[in-house]
């Protein structure tokens, strides 16, 4: 391609570019708006996912309940409880289950080094840690399968429990006394944001191996069962199989909505993500409208330029410029104006996002700032922005350029 003409157009543009400074600012502002709004939108979606995964991603929780329908001669109103053996019973019969763990808990006194507090203490298995995002801080671990089978007296504690009992000292290796039984701390939960919970945030919880916990709490039944499907799309299928199997075992109608209950985070997440996706698109549209104002400014500027430069166009036509040369020049000037404004807008947006992300998030009281302080860029945002920009740039450039190229050389030469 012969780049000589574009280079000449560039040199002509440079001589006039002072006139474009206000428009450049409008484009700068539009770019900044669209990019920041999209980055905040995407950041909120991500933070929602992160916060939601604080509880656990692709997780189904099963609870017992009370029958509301008579079944096989049995009356309604019967209590349905879950028991430890239900875990293997379900796992053996539902191949779509990837992980499954029982959970029991009770509110118990916990003491260490002369301090005493009351906290919810849970008994569960190693798989629970993987499903419920129980990531240990450096130097620690979650409960492992041997802890469970051997009934070891070990504990995994939330970071707030660690602070409450041991201050800033390392809790791992120290002893806590739960209901007068000593346990060794093997891990402390790493800080995480968590917007969904039962029994309070994980930061305040204490986890013990399932059998060890049952020596403190002698109930036979368990509070709930956690299930992770192999594929997120199988969650509703697993729900219905669990209902059928438990219905057969405990003799209730699988269609009975109150005999068991489910907390299906996969379905919740879908709903939540749809809402955030909506917000993201809405913010993107507002940003695009802001950029549109800049684009209208460019169109206006180029129309004015086409009129103001009538004589120049006439001269160029007289000495042999073709229509496409004139169209090309006006179009390229539009691109130059756009490129300048949007480049600086891009740089500014990028830096602002970077600066905002430096702000710390308060994990103790997880609030609105956790959603707002983590805007982010992605290829998707970039592609969306470039698409909007290209359309606007083309539309703002093409009409003035066509108008300029339709000039009659004689009339243009006479124009003063």
């Amino acid at each position: 391609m012969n780049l000589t003409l574009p280079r000449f157009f560039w040199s002509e543009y440079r001589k006039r570019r002072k006139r474009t400074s206000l428009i450049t600012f409008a484009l700068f502002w539009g770019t900044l708006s669209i990019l920041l709004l999209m980055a905040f939108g995407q950041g909120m979606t991500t933070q929602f996912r992160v916060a939601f995964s604080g509880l656990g991603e692709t997780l189904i929780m099963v609870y017992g309940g009370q029958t509301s329908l008579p079944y096989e001669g049995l009356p309604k109103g019967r209590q349905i409880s879950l028991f430890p053996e239900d875990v293997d019973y379900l796992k053996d019969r539902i191949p779509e289950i990837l992980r499954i763990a029982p959970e029991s808990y009770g509110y118990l006194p916990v003491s260490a080094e002369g301090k005493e507090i009351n906290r919810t203490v849970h008994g569960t298995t190693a798989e629970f840690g993987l499903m419920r995002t129980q990531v240990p801080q450096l130097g620690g671990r979650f409960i492992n399968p041997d802890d469970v089978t051997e009934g070891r007296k070990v504990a995994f504690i939330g970071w707030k429990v660690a602070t409450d009992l041991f201050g800033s000292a390392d809790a791992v290796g120290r002893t806590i006394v739960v209901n007068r039984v000593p346990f060794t701390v093997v891990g402390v939960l790493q800080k995480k944001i968590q917007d969904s919970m039962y029994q309070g945030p994980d930061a305040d919880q204490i986890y013990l191996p399932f059998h060890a916990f049952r020596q403190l709490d002698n109930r036979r039944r368990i509070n709930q069962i956690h299930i992770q499907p192999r594929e997120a799309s199988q969650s509703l299928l697993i729900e219905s199989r669990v209902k059928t199997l438990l219905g057969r075992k405990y003799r209730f109608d699988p269609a009975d909505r109150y005999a068991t209950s489910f907390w299906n985070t996969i379905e919740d997440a879908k709903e939540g993500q749809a809402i955030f996706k909506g917000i993201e698109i809405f913010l993107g549209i507002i940003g695009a409208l802001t950029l549109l104002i800049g684009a209208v400014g460019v169109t206006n500027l180029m129309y004015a330029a086409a009129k103001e430069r009538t004589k120049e166009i006439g001269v160029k036509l007289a000495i042999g410029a073709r229509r496409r040369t004139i169209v090309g020049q006006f179009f390229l000037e539009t691109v130059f104006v756009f490129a300048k404004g949007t480049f600086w807008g891009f740089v500014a947006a990028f830096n602002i996002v970077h600066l905002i992300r430096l702000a710390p998030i308060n994990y103790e009281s997880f609030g609105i700032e956790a959603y707002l302080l983590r805007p982010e860029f992605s290829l998707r945002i970039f592609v969306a922005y470039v698409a909007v920009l290209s359309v606007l740039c083309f539309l703002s450039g093409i009409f003035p350029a066509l108008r300029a190229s339709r000039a009659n050389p004689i009339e243009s030469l006479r124009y003063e």
Partner: protein
Amino acid sequence: MIELEDITKVYRTGSQALEALRNVSVRIGRGEFVSVMGPSGSGKSTLMNIIGCLDTPTAGTYLLDGDKVAGLSFDELAAVRNRKIGFVFQNFNLLPYATAWENVELPMLFDGKNGKARRQRVTELLNAVGLFDWREHRPSELSGGQQQRISLARALANDPPILLADEPTGNLDSKSGEEIMAILTELWRGGRTIVMVTHNDHIAAHSERIIRLFDGQVQD
């Protein structure tokens, strides 16, 4: 070289029609120096525009180098103007933002000539009109005579066989005017065809032949 046969040009504005040229037949041979004279409104500019392929006749045929101009598209006409015809205007019509160098280079850019050829030709032309040292100046920084010499250099950029000069000395003092006429005469002696519109008999005296127009018709 230039053959106009029964050329008529009618301008229409709303319901009114103005006949700018009526059955004009003109032949200008290769290497001729012809002046076109006549009072205002006699059709001089219209004739020049048609010869220069800036405008097309309403009726009649125009053969340039034996080729019919009538059927050419807008861009084909642009190519003819670019390569075969050089224009010199009364008010110079230089691009105000471009330097002397860039103004001279422009027709070659439109023709797609490469950088080396352009540099060589612009240098040659600016030296020929004595303004090489002024190459970085913009038109507003040059005198009228200098501007017209730049405009002449531009007209010659693609080495066209025909030069059309529309009152080339009209906006110049007599000394600058004489300089321009000297260059035009030189070019004519070099074999170029020159068609010049002028009001000035003294200027017209430089040419070999005068075509007189009155009310859109050629006077014998």
